[in-house]
């Protein structure tokens, strides 16, 4: 397996000159964007702002409207209503200008199996507008970027799934776009390849490319995104940083595991005055939990008291609700 190597770049490398429309505008500003397919309101009035210099994740279940929104940004379909600006440029009025600002990697790796990796990239570079010599330079640089230099002259049909995805990501980069649109970039990838793709996306953001991605994976949004937009039924139902969203949806939980089952009652008694609800005791697991406000303060209080009572602990901690819990709380937990 190829080792996926990146340049360990200096942060002083010259900024890549990029086409830009209006650097003062957010990279995406959507106001009341709607789009229906027959009776299905895929986008039912989307309002969102994706700022520059960060990864914005559109998170939502299947059919929430994420892909439709990305297609609208990529000028593949026209919204029925509302306003959609990419770097201040209206996608309806000037789609050709928007196309020069974006790079799109869709759900399937749209690379040609019969061509080599390099030929695929040269082709897309030509279609971005590069002349043949510049297209070859761009293809080489991108091959290097996505760690496929050694495999650049092999036919893509001999690539693994992960290599195809990396090449597809590379194909969206050869025109050095201002905004990279990734529609479910890691769906169907094994965990290791997913980590590799995450790293490459982080590196791109560090290099100054704005990224908007869709995902069904809460972990992916948590790991990659500075800003998360939760979409359901064609509407934005929550936005914020992963931390903000977790704070919004649920309280911290203190969890205590004792060494000796006999101490559980004593621990329960200590937990009771700290929590906003009565503590829950799970005897077989030797565990007691309680939801709290200001988890860290309550935890240090608890640790002092436990020490005073001479109770032997196996584990103690405060945990945030996971993004899964947030997500289910917001979209309605399946029963």
């Amino acid at each position, binding site marked *: *397996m190829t*080792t*996926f*190597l*990146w*340049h*360990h*770049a200096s*942060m002083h*490398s*010259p900024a*890549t*000159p990029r*086409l830009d429309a209006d650097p003062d505008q957010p990279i995406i500003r959507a106001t009341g964007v709607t789009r229906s397919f027959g009776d299905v309101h895929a986008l039912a009035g989307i309002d969102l702002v994706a700022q520059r210099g960060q990864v914005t994740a559109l998170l939502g279940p299947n059919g929430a409207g994420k892909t439709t929104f990305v297609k609208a940004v*990529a*000028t*593949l379909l026209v919204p029925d209503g509302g306003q959609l600006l990419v770097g201040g440029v209206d996608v309806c009025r000037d789609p*050709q200008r928007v*196309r*020069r600002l974006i*790079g*799109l990697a*869709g*759900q*399937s*790796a*749209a690379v*040609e199996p*019969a*061509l080599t990796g390099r*030929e695929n990239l040269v*082709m*897309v570079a*030509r*279609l*971005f*507008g*590069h*002349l043949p010599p*510049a297209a070859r*330079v*761009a293809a080489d*640089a*991108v091959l290097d*970027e996505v760690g496929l230099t050694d495999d650049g002259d092999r*036919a893509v049909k001999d690539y693994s799934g992960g290599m195809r995805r990396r090449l597809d990501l590379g*194909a969206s980069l*050869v*025109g*050095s776009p201002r905004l990279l*649109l990734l529609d479910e970039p890691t769906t169907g990838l094994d965990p290791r390849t997913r*980590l*590799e793709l995450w*790293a490459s996306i*982080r*590196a791109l953001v*560090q*290099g*100054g*490319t704005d990224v908007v991605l869709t995902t069904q994976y809460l972990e992916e949004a948590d790991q990659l995104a500075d800003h998360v937009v939760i979409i359901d039924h064609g509407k934005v139902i929550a936005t914020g940083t992963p931390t903000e969203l977790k704070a919004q949806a649920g309280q911290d939980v203190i969890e205590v595991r004792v060494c000796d089952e006999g101490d559980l009652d004593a621990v329960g008694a200590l937990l009771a005055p700290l929590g906003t609800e009565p503590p829950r005791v799970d005897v077989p697991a030797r565990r007691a939990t309680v939801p709290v406000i200001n988890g860290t303060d309550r935890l240090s209080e608890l640790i002092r008291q436990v020490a005073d009572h001479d109770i032997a602990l196996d584990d103690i901690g405060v945990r945030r609700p996971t993004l899964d819990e947030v997500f289910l709380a917001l979209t309605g937990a399946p029963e």
Partner: protein
Amino acid sequence: MSPSPFLSSAPAASTLSISPPTNPPTALATASTYAGRTIRQYIRTPQLLVVNAATSIMFLLIFRYVFGGAISTGSIPYANFLIPALAATSGLFASGIVGVAEDAESGFFDRLRSLPVPRGAVMVGRSLADTVVILWGTFVTIAVGFAVGFRPEGGIAGSLGALGLCIVYAFALSWLQIFMGLVAGSAQAAQGLSFAVFPLIFVSSAYVPVESMPGWMQPVANNQPITMMIGAVRSLVIGGDTTRLLGHSTTYFVVRALIWSAVIAIVFGALATRRFTKQ
């Protein structure tokens, strides 16, 4: 398997430093890039070329040797009757329809639509590539035709004229293929849809003289575009008194064949381009 170098550390900044292109691609660059890619795809996928050629050869041999004996074509040898028809209609058996559907299905068209290309030029590129692929089928048909007794008798000028018409037909029919491929949307649907042209070719003068068909069918068969296109190539190739042999003069067929080719190219070209560019 060594661990990824960056898993534990902060990500390195991307060093990618490509200047963005100053201008979007021209129509010529767009069409030639897509055409070049499609032709390479064919050349590198020999199955495609072989299947394409094998289908043509199979039809040719079955009609030449299985049905040919039962079909009376008067004073024209059956090989001379059949081969011009098959050469003229290669475009109806080509795999362009499946190729287009695959490009739609794989997300390749979505990528093309997201690029700053002149969208009409994309379809022109596809058409040029498919024309070349169709002419490959024409070439195989003619080559095998010679082996089974085909002998053009219309002179060099007639043969060259017939060849020129085959090129025009290939271009026109490539648009039909592209449109059908876009309508099909998936390779599997495209396979099925490719049989939709069968009535068009069987209810024509391709394999049997129209006079042998039932009376109600003859006006249809006699006046449909494929019969005109075949008639033009056939009369140029066999030469002689084509009005006596084929019922109409060479000019009659050629003029109608060219008009029909233009109509097919314009109608399906417009429909395909509209379908590809619409958002």
